[in-house]
């Protein structure tokens, strides 16, 4: 197990390094007028030149890369060209917001999606039909549309929760919940649909297998049969999809954070990209790659726990 983990970590680090190099050169080579975007559209050419020199943009790109990489390896991702804030500080202040959103969404997705999938597979009939129709609709509706409708109904219409903004967990737990619940629901809808369908399909396949008939013949209670045996054996594919959904949610968080004006990584990604704030974008790339690496590792470990055959292979 330790060897497995180390091997995966090593591969992941190599992946992060490759992505960082590619990302850096793509960003720098594609960047135009970065200094002007920072100082202002109507700035005089000499001011733009001054800013370029201050940021070191007049140096060869290879020099800039090694300068960045050397600092990054020491844990210094530089400073935002636009705000001057250290990139690590900027990311650290915003990561909890996005993690609140995505972890909350993935937990909601896992619970609700699994329950719906199990109900559909075991109840069949109108329950199964309803779950399938609901999944189709949930997958088809764009996340931002769900977000806008939720805001309109619950925040502006009923005024149950704020329409925008974020209250930190450490400031007020109920305040935090009030600002995160609608974004979590908006982010989860599509994923719930996907997981429900995946669980339904896997369980239907598993329920047809001989061991299930054998366990029933032995008098195992249906509830225990479903949850201790069938669901556990069906969970593998659903878990893989859940892992992918978690990563997709990081992308989906961009839209949700914009709609709800949440100060998370997604909002930062949009503004940093528009501004051409390359140090901040590079920081986002590195952090996102590391998160994806950890998620994939976690999924693999859980798969191994669920299914011993995976460990042996």
């Amino acid at each position: 197990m330790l060897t497995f983990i180390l091997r995966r970590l090593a591969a992941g680090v190599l992946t992060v390094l490759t992505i960082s190099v590619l990302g850096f050169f793509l960003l720098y080579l594609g960047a135009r007028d970065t200094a002007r975007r920072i100082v202002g559209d109507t700035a005089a050419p000499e001011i733009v030149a001054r800013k370029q020199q201050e940021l070191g943009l007049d140096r060869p790109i290879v020099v800039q890369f090694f300068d960045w990489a050397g600092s990054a390896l020491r844990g210094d991702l530089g400073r935002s060209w636009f705000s001057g804030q250290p990139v690590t500080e900027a990311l650290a202040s915003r990561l909890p917001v996005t993690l609140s959103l995505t972890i909350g969404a993935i937990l909601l997705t896992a619970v609700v999606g699994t329950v719906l999938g199990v109900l559909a597979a075991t109840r069949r009939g109108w329950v199964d039909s309803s779950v399938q129709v609901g999944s189709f609709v949930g997958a088809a509706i764009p996340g931002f549309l769900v977000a806008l409708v939720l805001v309109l109904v619950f925040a502006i219409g009923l005024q149950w929760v704020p329409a925008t903004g974020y209250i930190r967990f450490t400031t007020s737990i109920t305040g935090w919940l009030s600002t995160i619940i609608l974004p979590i629901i908006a982010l989860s809808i599509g994923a719930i649909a996907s997981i429900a369908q995946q669980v339904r399909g896997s369980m239907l396949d598993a329920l047809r297998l001989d061991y299930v008939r054998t366990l029933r013949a032995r008098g195992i209670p249906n509830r225990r049969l479903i949850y201790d045996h069938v669901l556990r054996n069906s969970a593998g594919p659903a878990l893989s999809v859940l892992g992918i959904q978690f990563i997709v949610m990081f992308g989906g968080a961009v839209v949700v954070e914009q709609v709800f004006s949440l100060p998370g990584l997604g909002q930062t990604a949009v503004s940093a990209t528009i501004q051409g704030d390359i140090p901040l974008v590079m920081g986002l790339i590195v952090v996102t790659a590391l998160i994806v690496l950890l998620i994939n590792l976690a999924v693999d470990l859980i798969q191994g726990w669920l299914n011993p055959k995976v460990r042996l292979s």
Partner: protein
Amino acid sequence: MTHRTKLALTVAAGGLATALALTACSSPSATEEEAETTLRLGVVTQLSSFAPWEASWANESPYLQAVYDTLLRTEPDGTVIEGLATAWEWDDARTVLTLTLRDDVEFADGTALTAQVAADNLVRFRDGTSQNAPFLAGMTSAEAPDDTTLVITLAEPDPALPVYLSQNAGLIGSPAMFDSPDAQTTPIGSGPYVLDTDKTVVGSTYVYEANDEYWDSESVHYDNIVMTFYGDPTALMNAVKGGQIDATNLQSPTQIAEAEAAGFTAQTYEQNWTGFLLADRDGTINPAMGDVRVRQAFNYALDREGLLQALDGGLGTVTTQVFGLSSSAYDDALDDRYPYDPERARELLAEAGYADGFTLVMPSNNFVPESVFAIYKEQLDAVGITVEWEPTGDDLFGRLLGGSWAAFSFLLQTDPTSWQTIQFSMLPESAWNTSHVADPTVIELAQIVRSGEEADADAAARELNAYVVEQAWYAPVYRPYSAFITAEGTEATIQSDNAVPYLWNIRPTE
């Protein structure tokens, strides 16, 4: 359905209902904060920097005014008044401005304000990377003969200097910021509020607490200010309709109706103009554009009322001049010097020898929708000016200010003083006189505006305005509305020379 399943579902439903109920009870509560007043201000532009020598202004001014003072201030009508300076005086040549500073001001770190600190700030601004650094480009020195006397020496007269000193050029920060690596994010000013860095999320939400030691306590109307950046128009309007904002600029005048429906009061004002700069007045790039009749034809070809309606829903005022409403050069008669007249346009083109028309290459860009360029092209093509839009991608400004095109479409601000507009785009060395045309009449009149007595300067400004309109240096289309909205319980006075009301003019309704 089994009993256990029913129980599970009931518990889940109850939990969700409880969570929603708790969140409704827990909204940032007036009960908890009723002893303190808080202004919740929406801002439509991110703050670029708290460092005074990098500071921007306009939409960023609230962030900065909260923590800094400026050497001078302006009334809503643009009249210059005291700030950190209680008196100021020009010498006879109008190249030396002497200011007397207050002696009772301290920065948030306890450092006293002195004239030397102010002088150092001015030099840093002049040599810094603010887009307005050219405001002080003509400053040869800033000296402090004593702690309360600041002497600014210019190479040539600049009548707009007092206005500049009321804006970002006049921001005064503590000397502790000069070499601080955190200057961009951690301001140390003498202003009415202090930034709460613990509660602030850079780029998103800025929280300020009132400075109890502030020298002008009458201008402090709130115990706290929370400024939230809204980059997305939908998020902004959701915050407005959700009652989370007390005051904000709108990103577009088309949002006014929605804001008023939500119970807000909207005030509109005009501080920009949109249209064309007909830069190639010498005909160097396109010989046709060197003929005033061709440039006048360009103006006659534009259906300004139609364009205003189509592009901005009629929310603005058509114009053919680029000077601001509050400037001495403004003449409302010049707002319709060129009524829509395609026939007259064709006549002028024929007189100039272009009866068959000519081709004009202008830049398109990603800032403006393709449909806008299509509308302009249609109207100009109709009189014989065949427009070819050249896509520019990200390299627009470099090429634009480098004089790549004979004419181009843009949105620019109207300045509070005539001299600012002249300096910005009419002098041979002006950055936005992209072909660097040197017109003797413009130069002569500009010199009077710069150095003359007030009455002479005002007359020269009006004459210069009439001249550039007659010479069709520009083809402005309209001045779009900007809007500032306030919720019930909050009032604001529009600032004639700024995109946002000054912070001390936003207050609770009495």
